[in-house]
């Protein structure tokens, strides 16, 4: 056995030098065949079911993910039944521009989308190397497309590429742009737990240790510590913003859950919570942080590498936003 192994090491190095044929080439052929079969299966599955199917790929193929992310969003796969589709987005968005006069006496004009993390800050990293920053940026871009297409809004983003933007700078950007609505997109990571969850936060005090831990993760890029927030949080406690933010968070959460349950019944609805996130602090307008998915769950990480899944998350976020905007419109419920 030892002699055999030594010979393979030698041959392997010959191949590296471009001499000799051997194991590696054979292996690559074998892999190539597997990719082809996987691709064929995929096409067949889409044709037969008219829906997006998850096929597990080998790890090597998954590393192609970064390249995939840099491509312009192509046509999304056909939507499964019950999942937000463009037609539904249209009907919901139809009444979109009316709302919110009830609270502020003004209309929502500018929506700021915040793709979590970026640049040297990868956010959480999945077991297969998927980075939160790439996924949040892709979802944010898709969300912008939907919002721009369906509503008469000005849509801005805190970052449009893989650049590092400090948390305080994100808040500043939203303020300077006079954003009326702020949504921050993140991916969760639950150490020790294999479950898959969705949750949405709005800014406020919290005593839950797990929430504080998550807040620590998401606040990592800021100079401010949790203790700094306490005073501000107390002042904020009774303002209109809190109530509005909670309603906004509820719309986002319920739409995300509604969609994802149809995809995967094991996803758990962790609901709407308050947490002291820096990006939500200091904004006088309704603002939420959505943990749209959970990277520590292996199946979910694979799903996130699929364009279709990211597209649906973006659509359900868009639905959640329109839903919230329409809440002041009494005819809205009747239309749904």
């Amino acid at each position: 056995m030892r002699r055999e192994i030594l010979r393979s090491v030698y041959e392997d190095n010959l191949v590296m030098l471009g001499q000799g044929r051997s194991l590696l080439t054979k292996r690559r052929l074998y892999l190539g065949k597997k990719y082809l079969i996987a691709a064929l299966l995929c096409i067949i599955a889409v044709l037969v079911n008219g829906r997006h199917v998850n096929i597990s790929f080998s790890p090597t193929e998954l590393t192609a993910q970064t390249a995939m992310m840099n491509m312009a969003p192509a046509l999304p796969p056909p939507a499964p039944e019950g999942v937000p589709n463009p037609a539904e987005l249209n009907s919901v968005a139809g009444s979109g521009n009316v709302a919110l006069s009830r609270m502020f006496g003004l209309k929502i004009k500018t929506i700021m989308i915040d793709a979590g993390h970026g640049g040297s800050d990868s956010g959480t990293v999945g077991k297969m190397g998927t980075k939160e920053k790439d996924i949040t940026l892709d979802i944010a871009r898709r969300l912008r497309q939907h919002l721009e297409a369906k509503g008469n809004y000005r849509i801005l983003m805190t970052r449009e590429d893989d650049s590092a933007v400090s948390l305080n700078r994100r808040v500043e950007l939203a303020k300077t742009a006079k954003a009326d609505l702020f949504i921050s997109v993140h991916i969760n990571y639950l150490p020790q737990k294999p479950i898959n969850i969705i949750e949405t936060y709005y800014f406020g005090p919290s005593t839950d240790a797990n929430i504080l831990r998550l807040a620590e993760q998401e606040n990592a890029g800021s100079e401010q510590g949790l203790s700094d927030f306490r005073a501000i949080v107390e002042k904020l406690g009774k303002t209109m913003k809190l109530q509005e933010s909670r309603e906004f968070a509820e719309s986002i959460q319920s739409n995300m859950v509604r969609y994802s349950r149809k995809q995967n019944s094991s996803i758990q609805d962790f609901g709407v919570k308050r947490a002291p996130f820096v990006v939500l602090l200091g904004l006088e307008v309704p603002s939420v942080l959505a943990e749209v998915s959970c990277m520590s769950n292996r199946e979910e990480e694979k799903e996130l590498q699929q364009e279709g899944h990211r597209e649906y998350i973006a659509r359900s976020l868009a639905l959640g936003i329109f839903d919230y905007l329409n809440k002041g419109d009494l005819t809205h419920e009747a239309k749904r």
Partner: protein
Amino acid sequence: MKQNDEQNQENVLFVGIDLGTSRSAISASNGKREWIESYVGWPKDFIAEQVIGKPVLFGEEALQHRLSLDLCRPLERGIIKEGIESSERAVKEIIRHLIDLAKSEPGKQIHAVVGVPSDSLKVNKLAIRRAVAEHVQALMVVTEPFAIAYGMNLLNNALVIDIGAGTTDFCIMHGTIPSEEDQKTIFTAGDYIDEQLFNYLIEKYPNSRFNKNMVRQFKEKFSFVRTLDEDIRVELPVDGKPVMHDIKNEVRRACESILPALVDTTTEMIARFDPEFQMKIKNNIVMAGGGSLIRGIDEYLQDALKEYGACKVTRVKDPLFAGSDGALKLATDMPAKYWEKL
């Protein structure tokens, strides 16, 4: 075959080199074993060179003078950054320095086996070959966990988990040279712990002064998972005055942050094989690399895997040299006729 080899060995110094993200080591057939931190620094300008008195610095020494040096950690994330000239130059310097440390007698040929992280793609292996080739007469490149497995005689029915700085590499041995599918790399490793620990400490002690390098030293000194009887306290300056800080909880949380991915990947690697082979592998899991020094990590993994039946996790005795020793063993075992053509 043995007799032929002996004749050659007279004029040859065999060396095994482990090129790691944070540390690199050499083991040589003359008994020498040395290691350095994988940092290379060049003086920024003529004045800096005058002050420092050397054209190039390594490891700890380079870190100390980092303000007057262009510093390079060429194997960051476990690979040579292809296209970045200084990385390749830095790898050359590391190899030259390691070989100097091994003190070959003049006139002797050097035959080297170099272990590199397993996610190094073909291009990176070539870059490493280019960087090493100047200093040796014959060279083979293998993956790091494979070198460790070979050195420990774990040729069959074994799983090696090498927790380095940039990556954690998994390698299943089943009697052949491991294929791509027998190996897997994840990015939760030592650097990841450093990052987590840094963030936790900033959060807990926003007014204290510390940097990433200090945090790395805390980790190396105190790392543990689960429980630890002793307290962990360090002195950090606050407003210029040294103050004791309790960092035990933060150290534990940071170290434990790599566990979920570690357990999951281990189970996933083992699950690919048929049940009979699974049983054998589970009784032969070996942890290596700096991360294997985290107190309690072997028991943690063993307990986590117990759910699926009995298993045995051990740690290599000498994580710093396990890779270079294995590479040296490969070099000396390698038949002479194979060396001739490389």
